[in-house]
């Protein structure tokens, strides 16, 4: 296979990987988990940049450096709050879903036991306990996310 074709295959692979249409519920959680993971990673990079300015301020014994960074951030206005809200949602979802995955992968829970498959086959790893966990996580995350949104809006003085 030429590198060009490989590149093409790779790109379509990325789209297919993130498109859960027609597949199972867990595929959607997989997609969200990956996307929120990327958001958190980007946020962490930005965050390190922010902390770096704290360090600069301490090293140079010049708090002004930090204040100006804060001012720059505040100048984003509502965008900063929206950004934080998205980061909060990502963290909530990634964390909660991550807990479910730990139950799955480390403790082998929510998967059922090895069985004699019975036609029409419905895999036990995707059946009731798993689905229940997904729904509970979604409900909790959405509730907390709304709360976080309200909190942020309150911080802006809107509410």
């Amino acid at each position, binding site marked *: 296979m030429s590198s060009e074709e490989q590149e093409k295959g790779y790109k379509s692979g990325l789209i297919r990987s993130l498109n859960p249409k027609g597949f199972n519920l867990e595929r959607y959680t*997989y997609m969200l988990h990956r996307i929120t993971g990327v958001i958190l990673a980007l946020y962490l990079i930005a965050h390190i940049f922010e902390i770096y300015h704290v360090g600069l301020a301490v090293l140079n014994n010049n708090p002004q450096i930090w204040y100006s960074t804060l001012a720059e951030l505040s100048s984003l206005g509502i965008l900063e709050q929206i950004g934080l809200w998205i980061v909060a949602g990502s963290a909530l979802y990634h964390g909660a879903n991550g807990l479910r995955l730990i139950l799955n*992968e480390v403790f*082998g829970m929510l*998967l059922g036991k090895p069985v004699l*498959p019975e*036609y029409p*086959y419905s895999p036990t790893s995707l059946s009731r306990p798993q689905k229940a966990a997904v729904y509970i996580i979604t409900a909790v995350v959405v509730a907390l996310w709304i709360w976080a949104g309200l909190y942020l809006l309150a911080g802006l003085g809107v509410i």
Partner: protein
Amino acid sequence: MKIRIRRFDGSKSWWQDYEVEAKERDTVLDILLKIRERQDHTLAFRHSCQMGSCGSCGMVINGKPSLACQTRVLELKTELIRVEPLYNFPVLRDLVVDLTGFVGKHRAVKPWMIRRNPEELEDASSEFVVTPQQNMSFVQFDYCIMCGLCDAACPTMALDPLFLGPQALAQAYRYVADPRDEGLDDRLEVLDDAHGVWRCHFAGSCSYVCPKGVDPAKAIQFLKKDILKRRLFRSKKESSSPATLPKVEKVPDNAPHPPPFDYKFEEVSQA
């Protein structure tokens, strides 16, 4: 009824529509055969057993990887059926994909019985003792027909061509879970790797499309658990041992038959 097939002749690919009459019991494979035999001899696809046990006719039907021979047309409930070659596999012609990498990955996980004493595998004097309950721990994963649907459905496979994939990993677990096998340590090098079990992020699509109920996702999560236990606690599983049977006289390979004798045959009736 209309069917739209993704075709490929080695250089270019295109969609081609066919109009076919479908009967109530027809499967997608029946439709494809009708097309090949009556309309277009050049349509290339694999098929063999026609009853869902050989795994030849895996293809993507209406966006879902399926076996053509066990997908009934009427159950699809669509006016237009869209058929594509399996995702995540290089296409050779029309619906025929290259399985070389796929079988290679399967072989890489050492999917065979491993005993610390290899001679136990060559001894035909008795069987291992395995209770029906122990049998249950792995027989589900032995249902795999190697059709490749799981690898085609796997979103991680779409991004990482080196990922072993659900088929190979589930087959590794099939032996790891077998009470007769003692080979987890031999397989760790391949499995405990960035492209091994840890690449799996549990989208579950493999289990969703599996036509035989193998549930590869379950197998892979159990495999992760077993590997962690082995690495963290150095735990070892208990394996079953060969049955001890009363010694039966060994028959030489080329056993001469006894001289003709009068054998009184009595009908044994079924109880």
